[in-house]
């Protein structure tokens, strides 16, 4: 797996650009330095040739008929001042030294062959009073005294100027090139960022798509053309998912019909029969099966289709409806249900039917676990909660997480439930971004509290323990 940050387009581009710039800079500087030295070398050569020609011009024929070097005062002074760096030797046709600076250089060149018109180059090591290295050339020049061989040389340290120029140049480049690299990379990153902004927006839209919003598709108008195939593919995937959800919904509906009808027939047939205790038991079994089928379908629906929780719901009404619906049945079980509203409307965003379903499951549980003759208390509170309190045995601390698992039934389970009721409650609360809490009734028994976020303020969906 590639580390996450190296998968970022910006980082990748910046890294590659940086490598490219460094390599290019190195190559350019290398070429420039080579060219500079090359040019400096040819410049040196030209200068030496010029000096040789210059020296040849100042050769005159002396009164004794011998060739002599008559330098003008300024040039002589110049050579004097640089006698350690610039040296020369002039030899006549006969090989005799006409003039040399210093004399030792003249002595050195005497055995050399006569120079030709093409310059020949030489290199002197550890020569002169300062034991310097000299580079020079010998060339044959015409003078008033006939052709002369002129050897001129310059100490190798004398091209300091070229070196310092190069150093300055490299320093300038070193300054400017990294700056240029940084500026270019920043610009590139900014361009990518702004280019990817539309991608980020579309990502936000994609993140909001869920089972309840299967019809949403991502727009590709504003996107870079490189990304549109991905978006199109994602949209196609959404199409297929939406189809899958539709199939699931149909399956749920079909399953509902297929299971309910035979059960309804059995229920009605048993109702019509007259008989003894066995028939009563059968009726109870069928009632249990009916309930199980309804709960299974409820769970399947909650799994397949996200609840629409956009309606405004008054928790007082919801709780009152459940109490009204359950109270007559409770009376037949020798139990009563009492209700306390919040006195003020408790409005939340939610799905009234689903919340009623959750409260009904809690009340059914409470009635099943309460001893005969006791009262189940349903309370709506202005803090956005509905609680159902019973006088049963309560819920053990270590079972408070487990009771919400599907098909979980306690060891001391009394009722005939399938263990789906509380799983449904949890799913409903999750869809509402609320929570279910289990507490203890101060008068003995359990208190189940459904807590809803008020004003759409989101709290993480969870199941809490609450020990009071």
């Amino acid at each position: 797996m590639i580390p996450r940050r190296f998968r970022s387009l910006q980082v990748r581009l910046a890294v590659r650009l940086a490598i490219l710039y460094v390599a290019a800079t190195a190559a350019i500087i290398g070429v420039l330095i080579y060219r500079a030295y090359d040019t400096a070398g040819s410049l040196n050569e030209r200068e030496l040739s010029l000096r040789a020609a210059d020296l040849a011009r100042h050769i005159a024929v002396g009164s004794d008929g011998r060739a002599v070097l008559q330098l003008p005062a300024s040039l002589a002074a110049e050579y004097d001042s640089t006698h350690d760096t610039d040296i020369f030797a002039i030899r006549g046709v006969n090989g005799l030294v006409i003039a040399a600076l210093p004399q030792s250089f003249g002595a050195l060149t005497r055995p050399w062959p006569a120079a030709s018109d093409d310059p020949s180059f030489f290199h002197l090591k550890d020569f002169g009073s300062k034991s310097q290295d000299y580079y020079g050339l010998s060339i044959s020049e015409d003078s008033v005294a006939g052709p002369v061989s002129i050897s001129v040389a310059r100490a190798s340290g004398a091209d300091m100027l070229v070196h310092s120029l190069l150093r300055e140049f490299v320093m300038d480049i070193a300054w400017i090139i990294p700056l240029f690299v940084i500026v270019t990379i920043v610009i590139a990153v900014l361009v990518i960022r702004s280019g990817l902004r539309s991608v980020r927006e579309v990502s936000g839209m994609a993140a909001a798509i869920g089972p309840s919003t299967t019809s949403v598709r991502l727009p590709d108008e504003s996107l870079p053309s490189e990304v549109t195939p991905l978006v199109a593919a994602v949209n196609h995937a959404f199409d297929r998912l939406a189809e899958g959800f539709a199939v699931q919904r149909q399956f749920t509906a079909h399953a509902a019909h297929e299971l309910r009808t035979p059960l309804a027939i059995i229920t009605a047939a048993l109702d019509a029969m007259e008989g003894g205790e066995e028939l009563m038991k059968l009726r109870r079994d069928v009632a249990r099966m009916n309930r199980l089928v309804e709960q299974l379908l409820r769970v399947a629906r909650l799994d397949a289709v996200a609840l629409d929780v956009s309606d405004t719901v008054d928790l007082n009404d919801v709780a009152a409806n459940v109490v009204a619906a359950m109270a007559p049945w409770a009376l037949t079980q020798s139990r009563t249900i009492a209700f306390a509203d919040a006195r003020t409307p408790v409005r939340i965003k939610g799905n009234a039917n689903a919340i009623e379903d959750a409260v009904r499951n809690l009340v059914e549980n409470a009635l099943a676990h309460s001893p005969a003759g006791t009262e189940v208390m349903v309370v709506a509170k202005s803090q956005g909660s509905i609680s159902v309190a019973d006088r049963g045995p309560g819920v053990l601390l270590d079972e408070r997480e487990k009771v919400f698992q599907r098909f979980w039934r306690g060891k001391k389970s009394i009722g005939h439930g399938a263990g789906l009721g509380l799983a449904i409650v949890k799913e409903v609360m999750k869809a509402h971004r609320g929570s279910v809490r289990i507490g203890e009734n101060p008068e003995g028994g359990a208190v189940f509290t459904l807590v809803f976020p008020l004003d759409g303020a989101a709290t993480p969906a969870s199941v809490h323990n609450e020990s009071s």
Partner: protein
Amino acid sequence: MRLLVIEDEARIAELLAAALTRAGFTVDAVGGCEVARAAFAVATYDAVILDLGLPDGDGLSLLQKLRSEGNQTPILVLTARDAVEDRVSGLDTGADDYLIKPFAMTELIARTKALLRRPGGALGTVLVAGNISFDTVGRDVRVGSILVLLTRREAAILEHLMRRLGRVVPKTLLEERLYGIDDELESNAIPVHIHHLRRKLLDAAGTAEIHTVRGLGYVLTDVES
């Protein structure tokens, strides 16, 4: 008393018809919208029991069509719970009552009778709960054959409870119906009336009982159920 049962599942239709016949009704059972409309053309029904899932059309649209044609026959709708959630608004537009499947046959018969006892309903003016009967025209209440004397408000409360036998009648609804805007309403007015009513019914050995659903209202149950 003639009822029309519109239910596509033959076995259920058969069992419904049998149960309702035993309860003393004359029952026609049909399996679809078209047949139902044909039945309406040739006979007059006192009440209709309509299953919403029909093979040749939506039960709700049949309901709306009947109502738009001025047919005021009381209609009891049978539906599954999730269908209620999907179409609650539809149920409001014309059904007189609805039962969620699965239901007990006794509940269906009780609801049907309640529909027929509504003002203008075929069962006429006498409400019955246990051995208590209430003639809503003559305003006299009998337990068995003994006349029980009730005040105007006690009688009104009992009428509401008997019309919704076995179901909770919210206290707020009783307050709205019994007291005008100008009437001084004390917070314990209804409980006091209920208390008196209970004692009178008990004294006359009535077999229906008024239960309090604390915080919500009252429910009348007959002892049999």
